[in-house]
């Protein structure tokens, strides 16, 4: 009997693989990288809704990420409450950002929206850096409490890894459900042709704001995770480079592809570390690889596999015809 593989099977297999990964990694530094991958996956899952599906270039992800990190960190710092409540603060923050950032997207289009989002990211960073009384300014926030369950604290990299794996799995589930539902379809159609969607009776303004809100919530949640994971945050982390990196992750994974985000985040987070042996040349090699990817596999590196399969299949089919088959 042939077993038909369903998305659920793939998900379980991937999760099992991810759960066993720490057993093969003894180096704490690599564990840290894995944790960063998990956080990045969540951010990119969100970004996928704005930039991948709805087609609005967002270069202000760092701002969203920063606001999430700071709202959760400062909340736990000042109120001395649990980081889990900080997570709720981050989600509320995400809703607010989504609304605030979604509105300009209704009026500003294309390149101008990208500029607006860059502005947003920079404004957030500068605001944080210049309000030292509230945020600690450029000194950052220190001693942010890690996540805990009861009195059990997640402190080592491996403990964190398993916690974040759960987070990422939940985030992935939500993103998958939205992207595969009528909402994913409407987001995609907005990218292709907004007027036609409007004429189908769909309130495109509210749809765009929805896309921004979902993306912001993912971003702020990841930001909160980052803050409580690192224990220390400062505004210089959340610069334009970070935003660009997220767009690159999305591109490597394939715009609009939910599963691609895992691959994209992993590649863009880990590849530079792999290239460390190149010394000063690593940046140029890394950028060249990304550039070539963008030229040859604009639908993401994952699409390379599909393209290859198609080529092989076509060749096989051609051979079949050549042999006189029908």
């Amino acid at each position, binding site marked *: 009997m042939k077993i038909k593989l369903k998305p659920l099977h793939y998900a379980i297999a991937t999760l099992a693989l991810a759960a066993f990964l720490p057993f093969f990694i003894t180096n704490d530094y690599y564990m840290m990288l894995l944790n960063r991958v998990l956080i990045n996956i969540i951010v990119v899952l969100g970004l996928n809704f704005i930039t991948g599906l709805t087609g609005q270039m967002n270069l202000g992800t760092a701002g969203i990420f920063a606001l999430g990190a700071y709202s959760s960190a400062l909340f736990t710092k000042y109120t001395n409450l649990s980081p889990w409540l900080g997570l709720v603060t981050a989600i509320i923050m995400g809703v607010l950002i989504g609304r605030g950032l979604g509105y300009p997207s209704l009026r500003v289009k294309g390149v101008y929206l990208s500029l607006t989002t860059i502005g947003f990211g920079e404004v957030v960073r500068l605001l944080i850096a210049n309000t030292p009384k509230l945020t600690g300014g450029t000194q950052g926030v220190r001693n942010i409490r890690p996540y805990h369950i009861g009195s059990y604290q997640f402190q080592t990299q491996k403990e964190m890894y398993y916690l974040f794996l759960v987070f990422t799995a939940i985030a992935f589930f939500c993103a998958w*459900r939205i992207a595969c539902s009528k909402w994913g379809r409407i987001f995609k*159609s907005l990218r292709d*042709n907004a007027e036609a969607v409007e004429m189908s009776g769909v309130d495109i303004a509210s749809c765009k704001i*929805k896309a921004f809100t979902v993306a912001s919530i993912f971003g702020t949640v990841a930001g909160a995770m980052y803050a409580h994971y690192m224990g220390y945050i400062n505004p210089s982390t959340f610069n334009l480079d970070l935003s660009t990196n997220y767009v690159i992750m999305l591109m490597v994974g394939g715009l609009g592809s939910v599963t691609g985000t895992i691959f994209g985040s992993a590649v863009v987070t880990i590849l530079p570390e792999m290239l460390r042996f190149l010394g000063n040349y690593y940046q140029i090699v890394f950028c060249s690889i990304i550039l070539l990817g963008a030229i040859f596999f604009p639908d993401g590196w994952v699409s390379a596999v599909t393209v290859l399969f198609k080529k092989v299949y076509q060749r096989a089919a051609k051979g079949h015809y050549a042999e006189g088959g029908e």
Partner: protein
Amino acid sequence: MRKVVNKRMESLLRVTEITKKFQGLVAVDNVSIDMKEHTIHALIGPNGAGKTTMVNLITGVLPLTSGKVEFEGRDITGMATHNIARQGIGRTFQNIKVFPTMTLLENVMVGGHEQAPMGMVKGIFDIKGSRKEERRLKEKAEAVLTRIGMYDLRNHLMKNLPYGRQKISEIGRAMMNDPQLILLDEPAAGLNPSERAELVEVIYKAYEDGYSFFMIEHNMDVVMKISDYITVLSFGRMIAEGTPGEVQSNEEVIRAYLGSRYVEQDKRRDSYVKSEWN
């Protein structure tokens, strides 16, 4: 799908003295149209007569300078486009506006988005409910596709379909919301004769199902064949209205739009036949 066929004498769409000015240019000048229920109403006129502007005014894409638009007796003047669509007005576009990266079925299903009321957060966790909703939407889309004769193509990407098919699929997308009225903006433009025949068939079938159509069209074959009533615009003004027969013989319409050739065609055909005989 629609099946309730109404009486023909009630007003479905009534446009009263609408005017649209773009700065100094008067695109639509004091035009009134009274469209009856369950009819096919055509709007014709030379290029730049303001026909597409009319459709944009009715659907709220452009704001009116003055005048009033009523649909089934309700005032829809100044409503947002998506709200006008929800009142029961569908539309197709002159330059097709489809979603090229999606399949035909998905394209049509987008049209029915409003028929599926479940919210986003509920949709994430209510797996069964959303699957049921999605299936209902899909079945409806398949029924619509069957009706417009494109069921077999449902899994093709839109961008891979020929122009004519893409154009007809817009009617399918509009039908998903069960509108009383569908506005067709030059549905036959760019279609070859056999596609045109297919289009006429699709429109006529839909008409029999109970849909009404308001149509802008340059192709006189199509207009004269299927419309019940015709309004003629020229330079933003209405110059004539009436049944196809009346409009065809209207002096001003011939001068402004149809051209004397259109009328003389019959005579020429007669003389050609005669010369054959002689």
